């Protein structure tokens, strides 16, 4: 059996490794695969084509998630990215919001085996519906592909994000405006976010996700 060689540690429990002469982004995990990713020794492959956060990291930008923080995750879907965040936040908690029942069913399998995930089948555009459930958090992650996603993000920050807390927003140009130039759409989203946040960094998710950007903000 070939060994896993650690090339670089990126942040807590996140590594770049070499295995069978290929490089992989991985998280250290004692859990079984969740979405068809490979597992070698203690590591779970983090597939950038499936997770926008992995794409961002492979494109050279990292947000340093400390293992004890609390995250509000909007748009958990079936839990691809959440599963890796759950590996990272060993002592923290993830409040995961998803409004569509079908992927949530798959997501629930993940939530059942991991103690740091709190699954909530709710509409992210109505934070008042879960204001009595979610506590103040250190970070909000949003991947919801909705027209008014920056507005939804700001609303959730008002309710739950502590002052000085961080946020990551994954923006897909076509779900905001399907006819406008992506660069125009991104400009618009950035200026909307600038009203309530300071923008730390933004960048492309190419080649893994076309016409997408990530935006890292601070509240």
């Amino acid at each position, binding site marked *: 059996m070939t060994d896993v060689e650690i090339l670089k540690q990126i942040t807590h429990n996140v590594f770049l490794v070499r295995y069978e002469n290929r490089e992989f982004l991985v998280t250290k995990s004692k859990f079984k695969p969740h979405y068809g990713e490979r597992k070698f020794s203690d590591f779970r492959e983090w597939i950038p084509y499936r997770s926008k956060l992995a794409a961002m990291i492979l494109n050279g930008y990292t947000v340093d998630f400390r293992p004890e923080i609390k995250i509000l995750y909007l748009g958990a879907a079936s839990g691809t990215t959440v599963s890796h965040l759950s590996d990272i936040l060993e002592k923290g908690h993830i409040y995961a919001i998803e409004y569509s029942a079908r992927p949530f069913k798959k997501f629930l399998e993940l939530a059942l085996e991991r*103690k740091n995930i709190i699954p909530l089948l709710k509409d992210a555009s109505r934070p008042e519906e879960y204001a009595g459930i979610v506590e103040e958090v250190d970070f909000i992650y949003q991947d919801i592909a909705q027209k008014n996603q920056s507005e939804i993000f700001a609303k959730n920050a008002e*309710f739950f994000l502590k002052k000085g807390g961080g946020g990551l927003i994954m923006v897909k140009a076509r779900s905001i405006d399907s006819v406008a130039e992506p660069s125009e759409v991104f400009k618009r989203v950035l200026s909307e976010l600038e009203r309530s946040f300071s923008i730390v960094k933004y960048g492309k998710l190419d080649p893994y996700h076309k016409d997408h950007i990530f935006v890292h903000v601070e509240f």
Partner: protein
Amino acid sequence: MSEYKSEYKVWFGRVYEKDSELEVRKSDDLVQSFEESKSEKLDKIPFSLKEAGIRVFGSEEDYYSSLRRTAIQIAEKEIERELKGSERYLISLLKALDELDLGINLFSEKIRDLEEIKIDENTEKFRRIVRDLKKLRRDIEDEINSGVARSMPNMSEIVGGIIAARLIEKAGSLKRLSSLPASTIQILGAEKSLFKAMSRMKKGKKAKTPKHGIIFQHPFIRTLPKSLRGKMARFLASKLAIAARIDYYSGELKEDLFESVKRKYEEFREKSKAKSRK
């Protein structure tokens, strides 16, 4: 109980604010209090939820394990309800939509008839009804669109809410639609002309099978010249078959499906323009 300034419904019960003190009361039924909890003032809760909770749970560990257990219990229940309810609801909305269309047409015709004779207050009453019906129609259409986008995101993206809902209605359920071959989806809704063509063929006569059924309503097919509609319908149906399966088995949006449909349409569009120029 003494007087308090505000009351907050939180997942583990109630929190009362008096002067600067908080009084925390744990609910006997966490599932119920979890479901009822929300901010009624549409505002942030002004105290630490976790600290208030620890007062009744005793420790942070117990707080989180109870929260998680209750959240999972409720999620399981809600998933069942959503998956069962949503399709039947969408189909009944669709039927309501069709009946509204009939009504709107009927009344509009009556208005025209009346206007030809005499404009009086009765025509005004009819007009008001038609206005209201049209408003209701828009609302129902929005409801269908958002419902389909929620439970069948891929089909919704490719053909829109109404056509997707019609396909579900014709097939009976998303489950059945996801098991149909693309060739069947292509002519769903055109069964009559299909069977007519088949019976002619049986008798040894020449006949053409239909190119499209419900999906003909899609602008990508309707706006193409007749010679290309069949090809486009076949392509669209093949992508829809994939979309239905993803929607049924995973429910997550696959972003390049619609892209490929759009590219094909643009290709055909160019072709038809080039032809007409010749």
